[in-house]
């Protein structure tokens, strides 16, 4: 099927950080349409019907999420999650740096739909330039009357604050993000209550991902039906719309690609130039470091929420990491273990202790000190770590090693049986 980029249209051709350029490309038309010709509830309805699934990883329908906000007179907030830090993922960065007005427009429409007067963009600290670009976009939009008091004379007010994080992966978890935004340690909160009920400053709060928000202006502009038709797998109506894929690892052209949701894993790899000559496909992680492994038997899995889930993994952030036959999956395991151990907030016992235990275990295995007992320990982490903590970082940390055991037991076995030359200490 012929697919025209939606969210990344113009990137690499024109400078969309310039508000004139953005408007020339049809920017802020969605905002005009929503604010001047639609009722807030109609906007919510449109997004609901478009079946816009959250792009941050969980895939929860955005319109449904909006519907959870209680109407009890408390202030409401919209928080946009730009704390992109899932290893292997960099599609939000592209949207933030190259098309910030699309985000601003999406925020205003979402805020209008949910009668929210103040929004926050929580951007990871390392993306300082991105924060500056967003602040500039907000200021430019304000100068045009798209942000601030009485937008387009409709009486709708909207302030947008850009808030920088400071280096903590866990702040991408939505309740940790709220804590961080409130000036606390970025530790996830116990749920329930969910942010929709008790969120930022104890008020009802919507948290949407950058990419989710970026879709909003287009849905309003083109209608929900248009959005639902964008799919490479029309057999699955549950997933639709354009999706940014970050394809990295052992492919010829690692990078960001905007694709219709639902292509097969094989096709996605081909988009990025395919494997390097002479190499064979060994495994892939379809949705960042937190997603369980897929093997060669999964090459025809459809890259949509349902297809990947059915294969035992998850679409996550659609960060596809491809491993060919040269990659030692046990070594990859150590990277992930180190990463989760360093990024665990440390609140919950299983995560704090388990992540570091995994790190030490894989480190020792790679140095030749592994035993059969380690295999049992790693396997036990599926029940000891996954599903036992406040947030899912612990689950994420356990997914890769347990899927490694399941799909590629021989990889670990080679170390345990000392069949493989070990790396120096």
């Amino acid at each position, binding site marked *: 099927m012929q697919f025209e*980029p939606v969210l*990344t249209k113009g*990137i*690499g*051709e024109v*400078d969309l950080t310039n508000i004139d350029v953005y408007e020339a490309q049809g920017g802020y038309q969605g905002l005009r349409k929503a604010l001047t010709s639609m009722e807030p509830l109609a906007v919510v309805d449109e997004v609901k019907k478009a079946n816009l699934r959250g792009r941050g990883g969980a895939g929860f329908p955005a319109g449904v999420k909006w519907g959870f906000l209680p109407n009890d007179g408390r*202030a409401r907030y919209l928080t946009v999650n730009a704390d*992109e*830090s899932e*290893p*292997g*993922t*960099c599609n*939000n*960065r*592209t949207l933030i*740096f*190259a098309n910030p007005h699309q985000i601003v427009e999406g925020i205003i429409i979402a805020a209008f739909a949910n009668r929210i007067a*103040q929004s926050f963009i929580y951007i*990871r*600290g*390392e*993306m*300082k*330039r991105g924060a500056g670009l967003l602040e500039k976009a907000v200021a430019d939009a304000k100068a045009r009357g798209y942000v601030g008091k009485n937008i387009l004379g409709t009486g709708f007010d909207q302030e947008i*604050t850009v*808030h*920088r*994080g*400071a*280096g*903590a992966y866990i702040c991408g978890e939505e309740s940790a993000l709220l804590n*961080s*935004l*409130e*000036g606390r*340690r*970025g530790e996830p909160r116990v749920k329930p209550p969910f942010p929709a009920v008790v969120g930022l*400053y104890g008020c009802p709060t919507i948290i949407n991902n950058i990419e989710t928000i970026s879709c909003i202006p287009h849905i309003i502009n083109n209608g929900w039906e248009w959005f639902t038709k964008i799919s490479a797998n029309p057999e699955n109506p549950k997933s639709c719309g354009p999706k940014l894929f*970050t394809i*990295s*690892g*052992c492919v010829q*052209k*690692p*990078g*960001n*690609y*905007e694709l219709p949701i639902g292509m097969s894993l094989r096709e996605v790899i081909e988009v990025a130039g395919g494997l390097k000559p002479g190499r064979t496909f060994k495994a892939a992680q379809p949705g960042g*470091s937190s997603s369980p492994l897929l093997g060669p038997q999964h090459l025809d899995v459809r890259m949509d929420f349902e297809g990947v889930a059915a294969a035992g993994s998850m679409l996550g952030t659609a*960060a596809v*990491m491809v491993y060919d036959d040269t*990659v030692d999956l046990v*070594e*990859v395991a150590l*990277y992930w273990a*180190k*990463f989760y151990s360093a990024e665990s907030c440390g609140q919950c016992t299983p995560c704090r202790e388990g992540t570091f235990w995994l*790190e030490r275990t894989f*480190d020792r295995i790679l140095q030749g000190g592994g035993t059969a007992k380690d295999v049992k320990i790693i396997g036990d982490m599926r029940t000891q770590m996954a599903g036992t903590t406040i947030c899912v970082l612990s689950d994420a940390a356990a997914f890769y090693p347990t899927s490694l055991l399941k799909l590629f037991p021989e990889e670990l076995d080679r170390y345990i049986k000392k069949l493989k030359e070990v790396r120096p200490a």
Partner: protein
Amino acid sequence: MSHEITKTIAIREIEPPTWPERCKDEVAAILARYPEEREMSAILPLLHLSMRERDGHYVAVSDMAAIAEICGVSTAYVDSVCSFYAMFHRHPVGKYVITICGNMGCHLLQGGKALVEHIQQTLGIAGGETTPDGLVTLEITGECLAACDLGPVIQVNTEYVAKVNAAKWDALLDALKSGKGPEGYLEKLPLMGGACQDDWKGFPE
């Protein structure tokens, strides 16, 4: 692999910092971004600000105390928050903080391993250290820098430098040493399909 965990002791400065007065307007603007009585939200922005304003770009106890005062919390509370985030340095760092992505994609699959070794060799320091002349602090982070399309990637004071190899690093280091600065090497706007500025220079400054 170390099993010793020691505490980072924040530096105590006797004199209160001058930024609360010098940057009065900026502090007020930061506070104005958040709803009333939610001054605590300003803790992270103020930590960023105080770090920018202090020689050595770190947060001292006196900065934490000043922030605590502004935000209506205890100094210890600010310290607890500060210590949670990797970007808040509690000891002086070099003029340029070079952060190398040590995550799997860049490090294992895109040649980062060799690059880290090269960088350490040319600087004569290991990760976590600062060159004796105070020019560069090297950090090797396990946290993915969200630029897997540009690996191996590094950051120079939170600005990306893409697809770094030994030659590109050497040139960058020369620019830093000569005082020219990193400007020419920084990635301005991201592109699709893994392209970077080296491949395409279509954007105006």
